[in-house]
């Protein structure tokens, strides 16, 4: 399985590549009053309005980052931007290398974490760590169901919803596959 690897506060996080749509440079973040509080703002990507969730805020990290990237993912029916520090690479991590996370992990909320992936003899762009641990995020749990409903509502208000029934179905299918 391939993962998109990104950094937040010098920690490596990974999400399964099929969720990812695109990686973008940080853009102007528009603050809209009607948005739910966990949404930092919206960005415009090729005429499409996309809500952005700052993962730093989500993980309770307050210090400022030098660089920023937006990982655009497809969550359920719509696209959501995740604000991260940097996207480093796309990496292949086999299932054997993924272990279950401890209950409390480095202060991050364990419910977001799907597992910990280990990668040996990795040669990155910046770091030459031969041994790195990647926190694999459970993208579906990053938002609670309540937040998802709220997001949906606000999306309805923004009238920028683009329904993709196939996408939704395929996601479910893939989820089932994963569980097996």
């Amino acid at each position: 399985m391939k993962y998109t690897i990104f950094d937040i506060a010098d920690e490596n996080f990974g999400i399964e590549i099929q969720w990812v749509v695109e990686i973008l440079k940080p853009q102007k973040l528009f603050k809209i009053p009607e948005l739910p509080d966990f949404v930092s703002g919206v960005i415009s990507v090729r005429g499409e309005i996309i809500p952005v969730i700052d993962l730093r805020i989500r993980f309770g990290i307050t210090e400022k980052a030098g660089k920023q990237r937006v990982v655009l993912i497809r969550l359920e029916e719509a696209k959501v931007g995740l604000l991260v520090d940097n996207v480093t690479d796309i990496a292949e991590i086999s299932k054997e290398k993924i272990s279950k996370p401890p209950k409390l992990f480095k202060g991050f909320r364990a419910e977001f974490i799907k597992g910990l992936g280990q990668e040996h003899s990795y040669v990155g762009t910046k770091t030459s760590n031969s041994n790195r641990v990647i926190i694999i995020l459970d993208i579906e749990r990053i938002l609670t169901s309540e937040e998802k409903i709220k997001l949906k509502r606000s999306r309805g208000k923004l009238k920028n919803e683009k329904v993709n029934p196939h996408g939704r179905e395929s996601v479910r299918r893939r989820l089932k596959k994963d569980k097996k």
Partner: protein
Amino acid sequence: MKIKKKLSTTFIFRVLIILLIGQSFIWYWSFSRHNITIEDDLRERISLVSTLIANAAAAINTSQDYTYIEQLTEGAIKDKNIVSIEVTKGSKSLIRKSQAPEEMASQKMETPIMEGDKKTGTVTITYKQVKPDTVFILTNLILQGIVFLVLTFLIYLFFQRHIGRQIESLSASIEKVTLGDLTQKIEIAEDNEIGIIAKGLDFLIERLLITVRKLKSITGNVSAAISQLNLTFKNVINGISNRQRSLEEISRAVKNASGSQKQTIANTEKLLSLSNDNVSALLEMRAASEEIASSIGNLNSNISDSYSAVAGLTQSAQKVASMADNATSAVHKASTSIEEINASVKEAEKTIKESAELSNRTTNIIAEKGMLSVVDAIEGMERIEDSVNSLTEAIERLGRRSRDIEKILSVIKDVTEQTGMLSLNAQILAVQAGEHGKSFSIVADEMRNLSEKTAASTQDIATIVSTLQKEIREAMDSTMETVRMVEEGNHVVLKTGDALREILHASQKSTQMAASIEHAAAQQAKGLSLIFNAVDDIQNMILDVNRTTGQQERDTASLLESISSIKESMEAARNATDKQAESTGFITDNIELSNGKTAEIARASTEQQKVNRQIIEAMEEVMVIGKETTRNVKEVSLFITSLHNEVEVLRKEVEVFRTGTL
């Protein structure tokens, strides 16, 4: 206690009197009865005797026996009472016998001698009353008296024992009670009338005691209360009289005040009219003083001018005088120092010659060697400066270029990032496309490699450029330092040149000067003697000047003094007139104001006068009422005093009763 007053005595006495009267009456009666019986007895006896004699006489007629009769008469005559017996028969006296000379106080009894029914003769017996026996009477009386006395004593004893003592104690108690001792208790327990009386009396005394006690306390209280009341009333009277007095005083004061106020009103009105006059006068005065002020001002300015002129004169005179003084002293000094100079000038001449030679030599040295080397140094420094300047320019240009390189590097960096992102996106797309994207994924990998390489080389270039920049900066800094040092050196060289030039100039000058000094010194020596003579003349002249200037100074000073005094007085006058004008205005205003106020006061005073009159009337009424009150209070006080006196009397009376402890 007098015996007379004793009831028992009186009683006994009266009983005795009654007894005495009765006894004496009895005695008198018995005595008179005794006398009567005696008389009767005597008469009976006499008549018996006479009858006997008559019978015997009758018997003679018949028998003619006179013996018997004789005997009879003889026997009879022996009776003391019978004074004489005479028996007559017919006209013939038969027997006549008498005891003693007949007494006048004798009585006669005639008894007829009856012979049958015929009277033949009479028997006359004269007898006298025999006097009662005095001894007997006396004895009787004495006896009776003794009996009486015994009786009296007995009665007295009896009475005294049974009644008298009780009555006495009773009366003593009563007497004590009468004297005021109510503590008395009559102790008669007998059940007779006296006992009842005693009980009743006891009861009465008890009641009296209670009553008197009550009365005593009441009177005491009343007395105290009344004396208190009296005191209070006296105070009240005092207070009232004081009030009265103060009211009178107030009244008087108010009247006085009223009078003085009237005066005030009159005065105020007068004042008002006067001040009105004053105002107009003051207004005139104001105008006049303003005029005066202006003219005095003019005068003053003139005087000031002349004063300043004189002051200037004085000052210059003083200056002249002081300068003359200075000159005198200076001339003195000069004459002494000239002598000194003369001496030193000669010494100087020698030294001057030596120094002239020395300076000549110095000038030559400086001119030949020093100046040449300085000029060389300046030229060398200027060349250094030029080359350093060109070096600096070159370095600065290099710095600019390196900044350009930086810009290019940042652009390359952006491109690298973009490429990296692009390769990431390409990889994502390749993965998501599955089998079809495999060939695309190769391209994406290549792109990624490219971007990574570019990023690495960009990083290298960046480090090289920054090192270069750092070195350029250091070079620039050191160049700047060199420039500064070159400039400093240049400056020093220039300064040295200047200093050398000055030295040269000075030594040239000193050479010239030494020559001229040499020349002048000789002339000076000549001139000095001339000066010496001239100074003496000057000294004399200056002394003359000094004298005159002193005089002048004194004159100008006195002039200045008088002018300044005039000026002062004029200024004072001006000030005064100014002030007068000002204050006249002020006064006028004030007087006008005060006029208004005075009119107000007059009005207010008149008002108050009315009020005062009302007050006086009211006060008089109050005083009348007060007087009445005083009278009433005095009456009440008098009444209280009399009441007090009466109560005092009552109290004293009550105090007579000894009531014992309550």
